[in-house]
């Protein structure tokens, strides 16, 4: 029973982080039609920034906020410097087939990932570091008994829940949120309604960048920080996004939790070595049985 509870709580906390990663991926996918493989590179980079600030004696919370801002800025930069020129270039190019159009931004995002990892290596000498948590990461002790969850688990779940509530309010209640949803659903009608779609696009990158940074900050305390340490999280986040349905924000959250539980239970009941295999199987099963994900729209996206 205790093992089950431990797996459950750890799965919830992990799943909450994956939900944020998936949310970041889905935001850019909906807003710009791109799967951003550089996302966890961005997270790694901003987590290094936070870590450097903390090492130099600044408070955790200052570092936390600065990392989020840096993540948002990094997202904006990627859109302005790479993705926007890209969408202009290959309109005129010979590589203009639908398949290539979807492929080229993916390649660009991989290039950005490589770039960020190299830069992090240069700035921080590629050293592996630990990253602090604002609260204890050991099992919480309540009334003399060790609980199957840690204070940091609760912290993570609380922060993620807060972020999800705010995001959902933003999309449902604000005009900008409506503009973003409209653009994601039907760009032409959105444009004809006077929505500036380029601004919506960059906003998707900004929010996604901040979300990725948050994921990095939450994941770092339970692993080490190195230029490539978050690559795995991207794979997991991608799986979560596909499981939930790439174009659904609630789906991203659900997908994140599902993947979190799968990983946690495999980890607790079998061995960490089975995690990759479990992810691969989960991904393939979802793609074969329900390619649009658990909460994705019915419309089949093929090309």
């Amino acid at each position, binding site marked *: 029973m205790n093992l089950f509870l431990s797996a459950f709580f750890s799965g919830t906390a992990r799943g909450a982080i994956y939900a944020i990663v998936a949310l970041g991926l889905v935001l850019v996918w909906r807003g710009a039609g791109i799967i951003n493989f550089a996302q966890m590179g961005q997270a790694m980079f901003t987590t290094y920034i936070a870590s450097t600030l903390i090492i130099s004696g600044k408070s955790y919370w200052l570092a936390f906020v600065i990392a989020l801002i840096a993540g948002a800025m990094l997202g904006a930069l990627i859109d302005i410097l790479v993705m926007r020129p890209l969408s202009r270039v290959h309109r005129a190019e010979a590589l203009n087939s639908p398949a290539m159009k979807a492929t080229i931004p993916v390649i660009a995002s991989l290039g950005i990932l490589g770039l960020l990892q190299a830069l992090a290596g240069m700035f921080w000498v590629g050293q592996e570091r630990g990253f602090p948590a604002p609260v204890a990461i050991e099992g919480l002790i309540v009334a003399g008994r060790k609980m199957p969850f840690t204070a940091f688990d609760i912290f993570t779940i609380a922060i993620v829940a807060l972020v999800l509530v705010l995001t959902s309010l933003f999309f449902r209640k604000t*005009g900008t949120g*409506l*503009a973003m*949803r*409209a653009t994601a*659903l*039907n760009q*032409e*009608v*959105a*444009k*004809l*309604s*006077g*929505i*500036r*779609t380029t601004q919506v696009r960059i906003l998707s990158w900004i929010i996604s960048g901040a979300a990725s940074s948050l994921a990095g900050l939450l994941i770092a305390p339970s692993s080490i920080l190195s230029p490539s340490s978050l690559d795995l999280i991207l794979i997991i986040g991608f799986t979560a996004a596909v499981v939930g349905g790439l174009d659904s924000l609630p789906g991203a959250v659900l997908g994140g939790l599902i993947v979190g539980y799968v990983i946690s239970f495999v980890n607790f009941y079998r061995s960490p070595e089975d995690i990759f295999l479990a992810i691969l199987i989960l991904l393939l099963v979802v793609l074969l049985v329900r390619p649009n994900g658990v909460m994705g*729209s019915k419309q089949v996206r093929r090309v």
Partner: protein
Amino acid sequence: MTLEISHLTTQFGSVTAVDDISFTAKASEITTVIGANGAGKSSLLRTISGLEKPSSGSIKWNGRELIGLKPEAIVRLGVAHVPEGHAVISELTVAENIAMGGLFRRRKNRADLESASKEVYELFPRLEERRKQLAGTLSGGERQMLAIARALVARPQLILLDEPSLGLAPLVVEQIIATVNDLCRKTGLSVLLVEQNAITALGVADQGVLLSLGKVVADRPAKELRADATLRAAYLGY
């Protein structure tokens, strides 16, 4: 508030959809562009609203060149386009679709935006009843109303309507066309109505522009066009 189109040409690859078209849509009038399927009517509207880039020519709105502006900028100048096929966003609710049309005015003129959306609901009471419903659940006629409502909430001076009658029952078409006609007569809204259904369109229009294979064949008062049996037989088939 006139729209002057001169020598406008739009090409898709080797196909010339709009071929050296010139005409003027006068203020507070209904100008209808009629012609058979493939005559270039939709491409013409899409070029005016900035969705397609023309290869040459000019589109002057109040003396201002529209070519080169993005669709979102053209809407802001008061030219609203209701594209073909009841273009609404089915995954959003009726209220959200209407709110979307007024989003760009929400900061500058909130009070007027509120009264504009009130007017739109008064114009189409059916939409008021279905505010909370997803647009995808509406009937074809209601969706067309919603598409027009979405455009009207931006308080345009010119509305470009692309085949509002497409796929709708005659009674519904009559109702929609009557509403548009009313708007034009009462509020002075200019209308550029693209229709395959020439009888209905010429029935309400002031001026008629007849297109065939991307070119203007006739540009005359609607009454004259209606009366011209030769043109009717040659291009409209009735």
